[in-house]
């Protein structure tokens, strides 16, 4: 004989159904009052109910304003406005890059006039390309070619030695 566990058997599902069976077998409380609780209904209430309900079903159209779609547009507009604002802000913050073209020639001249340049004539000659220079870049007075020729003819002994080639 086994020492642990008993040798008695129980029908299958016995314990599972025990509570249920017990509650079912509890003495049924005698009806304290008749099953009629005393509630009354107006005459013809149930006969008229259907029509009343039909009326309500037909008129019950909830007027719901679709706010959702407006929200979409609102958010779209708001984000575009924000983007534009940021773009403008970024542009304003940009410091314009300066170049020499932005400076007027007068300002450059004034600078050299007012400031003592540490550059000698030789330094300047090195920097400025001679090829691009024209005589009138350094001389203000515009002399006509005729006047120049007349001067040379009258003041130079050997005019022919100048080898002036006529461009004509």
């Amino acid at each position: 004989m086994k020492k642990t566990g008993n040798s008695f058997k129980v029908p299958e599902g016995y314990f599972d159904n025990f509570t249920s069976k017990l509650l079912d077998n509890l003495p049924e409380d005698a009806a304290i009052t008749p099953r009629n609780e005393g509630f009354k209904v107006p005459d013809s209430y149930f006969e008229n109910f259907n029509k009343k309900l039909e009326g309500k079903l037909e008129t019950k159209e909830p007027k719901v304003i679709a706010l959702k779609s407006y929200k979409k547009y609102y958010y779209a507009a708001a984000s575009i406005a924000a983007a534009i604002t940021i773009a403008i802000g970024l542009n304003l913050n940009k410091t314009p890059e300066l170049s020499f073209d932005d400076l007027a020639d007068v300002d450059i001249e004034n600078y050299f006039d007012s400031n003592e340049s540490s550059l000698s004539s030789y330094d300047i000659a090195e920097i400025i390309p001679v090829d691009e220079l024209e005589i009138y870049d350094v001389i203000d007075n515009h002399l006509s070619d005729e006047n120049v020729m007349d001067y040379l003819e009258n003041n130079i002994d050997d005019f022919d030695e100048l080898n002036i080639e006529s461009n004509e």
Partner: protein
Amino acid sequence: MIEEALLVKQLQTEATQKRAFELLVNTYKEKLYWHIRRIVLDHDDTDDVLQNTFIKVFKNINSFKGESKLYSWMYRIATNEAISFLNSKSKKLNIGNSEIQEKMIANLESDVYFEGDYIQLALQKAIATLPEKQKLVFNMKYYQEMKYEEISDILETSVGALKASYHLATKKIEAFLKED
């Protein structure tokens, strides 16, 4: 009695929906009325809740999947509508649920549509003191004489729990009436 599966199909088909719904209302309006009335007590309130119940049923009929009986589903809607009604009533009056019950019982005494004698009134008072679940189970078992399996389907509670609830409810009512 029309077979349930067929009725559901007719309810969910546009061509047959109206007539099927009329049949549904005719079949269940009284049963649902009394179920609601036992919760809200007043006839006019019951009328409102009953209409709202059917309107909800109509609006949601297409989403009914047949996982439970049509009747159980409607009953569940009616129960929830009635309880919601009481909750919103107590919110409006800014008083608790037990106070609402007291108010309702007080109104019952002078209610034109209540012709119960003093014992029946006492019983209603006793039932009003029960917690919500016990009250529902008691009404459904004692007055509507529904089977536990049906109640289980509607309240989505196990049969065992329902039996225990019912037993507790009857004990409480008995004690209340004895005190009186």
